């Protein structure tokens, strides 16, 4: 089913519900490898609900169909010197798909965000309102078209990151941001992960307003678009060019003793952060399992070191000043999940199995298991929207 209007979408879901069908809901189907395998007998393809419907550059707001390619949206925003502040990654290549194919609806459904997350939020923080179709086939809306709104429950937060299990998005309204006029990155070479994370957190807690703070061990750093020869703590600054240059200068003086300093200007900086955002080109491909671990930022170095020691042959990198660990491990079914979750959990972190063979994703909990009471509450929320389990059954939890 490829509905092209809200009414068709609503009819399609209602018919599926009436006929006892279960739908695999997709945007442009670039991230079907993200999550548990969906157990469905029909495909509900939202790519036909595409196109920008209203874009008000002076309001920093855009309303569009969820099937709109991200690339199309970003190009339209760029024409007006604007962008999505949450920097949604292109995860297609991570799943072996071509680059530049993902949809905005998919980015929202997975609550994606890039290196700017700590400063500007994730997709959830930029979704102002939406229209969607519930698992009963009801077309409904929530949120609004303005940046500040407490009128009814904040269902945009709930729908973002719900992996299409609560409703099929039919239209979304997003806030957009001015594109920074300049950017540059300072690279501090040769420090280990513990020192690097301390350094990154010092910066995150200081007044220079960095918009990217990451760490690449030497084995990963060589794969950067502008290859770095040693391990690298990297710090991005964006804004008016004069201010970017001044902050960089200030930092160079302050960090003179910390390691070999290098700066990446303009496009070189942008390419590095695009690679960090999309991850695929920095981590080994093939059959490696990939984990995404969210952490309290100060714990990033210690967790990385512990996993590095426990998992021979793994490769990893840290983003969000230590708050996000990407980890690629040689395929070793089952066991690693418990290890990764145990180490992360000891430090207050939680882990998602981002990429793994289908069979593994069926048997290992892809998403962090929740306490029974929370799991039961989540199921009641699911049932409130989709009582028969029509939408993406199995994607989040094996049981539903």
């Amino acid at each position: 089913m490829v509905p092209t209007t809200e009414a068709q979408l609503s009819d399609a879901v209602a018919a599926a519900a009436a006929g006892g069908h279960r739908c695999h809901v997709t945007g442009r189907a670039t991230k079907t490898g993200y999550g548990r395998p969906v157990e469905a007998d029909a495909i509900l393809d939202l790519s036909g609900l595409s196109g920008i419907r209203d874009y008000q550059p002076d309001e920093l707001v855009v309303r569009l169909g969820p099937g709109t390619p991200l690339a199309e949206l970003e190009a339209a925003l760029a024409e007006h010197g604007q962008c999505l502040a949450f920097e949604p990654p292109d995860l297609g290549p991570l799943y072996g798909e071509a680059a530049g194919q993902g949809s905005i609806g998919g980015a929202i459904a997975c609550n994606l965000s890039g290196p700017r997350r700590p400063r500007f939020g994730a997709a959830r923080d930029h979704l102002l309102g939406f229209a969607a179709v519930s698992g009963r086939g009801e077309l409904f809306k929530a949120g609004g078209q303005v940046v500040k709104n407490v009128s009814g429950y904040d269902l945009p937060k709930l729908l973002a990151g719900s992996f299409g299990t609560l409703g099929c998005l039919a239209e979304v309204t997003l806030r957009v941001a001015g594109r920074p006029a300049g950017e540059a990155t300072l690279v501090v070479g040769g420090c280990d992960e513990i020192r690097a994370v301390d350094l990154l957190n010092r910066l995150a807690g200081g007044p220079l307003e960095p918009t990217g703070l990451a760490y690449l061990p030497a084995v990963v750093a060589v794969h950067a678009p502008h290859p770095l020869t040693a391990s690298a703590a990297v710090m991005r600054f964006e804004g008016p060019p004069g201010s970017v240059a001044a902050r960089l200068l200030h930092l160079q003086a302050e960090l003179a003793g910390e390691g070999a300093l290098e700066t990446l200007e303009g496009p070189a900086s942008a390419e590095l952060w695009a690679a960090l955002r999309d991850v695929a080109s920095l981590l080994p491909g093939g059959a490696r399992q990939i984990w995404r671990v969210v952490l309290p930022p100060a714990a990033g170095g210690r967790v990385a070191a512990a996993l590095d020691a426990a998992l021979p042959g793994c490769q990893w990198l840290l983003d969000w000043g230590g708050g996000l660990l990407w980890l690629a491990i040689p395929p070793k079914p089952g066991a690693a999940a418990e290890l990764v979750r145990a180490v992360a959990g000891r430090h207050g972190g939680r882990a998602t199995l981002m990429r793994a063979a289908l069979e593994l994703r069926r048997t290992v909990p892809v998403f962090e298991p929740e306490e029974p009471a929370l799991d039961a509450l989540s199921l009641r929320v699911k049932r409130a929207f989709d009582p028969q389990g029509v939408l993406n059954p199995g994607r989040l939890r094996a049981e539903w």
Partner: protein
Amino acid sequence: MTLLMPPPDQASLDGREALVAALTRLLPAGAVISNRTALGAYECDGLTAYTEKPLAVVLPQTTAEVAAILALCSARGVKVVPRGAGTSLSGGALPLADGIVMAMARFNRILEVDLANRCIVAQPGVTNLALSQAVAADGLFYGPDPSSQIACTIGGNVAENSGGVHCLKYGLTTNNLLGAELVLMDGTVVRLGGKTLDGAGGYDLLGLITGSEGLLGVVTEVTVRVLPKPQAAGALLIGFADIAAAGACVAAVIRAGIVPGGMEMMDRAAIHAAEAYCAPGYPLDVAALLIVVLDGPDSEVPELMAAVSAIARAAGAVSLQETRDDRRRLAFWAGRKAAFSAVGRLSPDYLCMDGTIPRRRLAEILTTISALSATHDLRCVNVFHAGDGNLHPLILYDANVPGELDRAEAFGADILRACVAVGGVLSGEHGIGVEKRDLMDTMFDATDLAIQQRVKCAFDPAGRLNPGKVFPTLHRCAELGRLHVHGGKLRFPDLPRF
């Protein structure tokens, strides 16, 4: 206007004494208030037009006590209204005659200041300002800063998704909340989030409870992010001969991609009231005043100030003062911060409205408001968060003059309808509560509201936690579950309100 609330449950009213006895057995001495006079202190929140005495007030101190009280009330079919500091402007904490108030005042401890991860773990009764104070010496602050911050609690902030003058740049409560402990109406305790940004595949229930006005659960602990204080700050005080020009200036700043730390507007009446109240040195011959604060790195602030000042001149500013001096900047702010109190001097009572509109419609909506002011024959003062289009028209009235409150409410409702008509919303940061409850169907149709109420059912199937707020009608959960759509329309028997 008398506010229509769900009819009180006779069994709850009759069972008051037994309930008080059971609560007294459950809780330490002094944690149950049942004396009629003492209950008076809880009979309203910041929306003073409505009052009601609850059956009793409980003052729990631990999560276990909260869970036990809620379980007891669930078993007895008694309603519960959570309460923080009672500064809500929408009646969210208005007691119910057949329910108890659960006041969170004794949850007043900061549990952990985690400087390494730049977050604070606190109990919900801690005031908003106390969070910033706890980390001030370390160069950090808590972003959302409602004007009520010395009094309002972080639990209340979570329930209302409160903002403040700096949320344009630093976000609302929802953008700064990392974790929470929540007790459901049946006594179940769940923990949401933690010290991480985002979770790992669970529903964002943390985002859902933020702004849920105490209808989904009682928050017993929060973890919030704290941010580094900006290195430098400057402010501009810009006067305009007409409101339209001020509105155009706001739109132009936004379009330029500048994100001010705050961008507030005051109309002539507000300027004069503030000047009379605390003499901040505002120009008195202008129709609108914009206060723009620009903060950030030393290297950036001067450039941003120059940019805003150029935009202001191009937009036809008739007066312009700039400062990078902290004392003068705070003086610019002083009048804005005191505006509500200042307006309080103009009139015995006022209603504070809270609609949000698309920023480019500012001038238009302000013209509409002044026309409505004439129609309803009541004065209205405008002081608001212009940067995010969040209006706070203050409607002046005298509750002692028969009929004035009704007129003020009708005026307020017309303003909110006008906000929705230009693509805006009923509430930017104060919540729906009882105040805007009956206007919800100007924004949402029956399906939208049914879906929201089904979410409530997932948390509180018997509808005992803060009912009568937010939703203009109450439905039993079983009934909501049976509703079916047809051709995009709900087959909705025309049910009476409550």
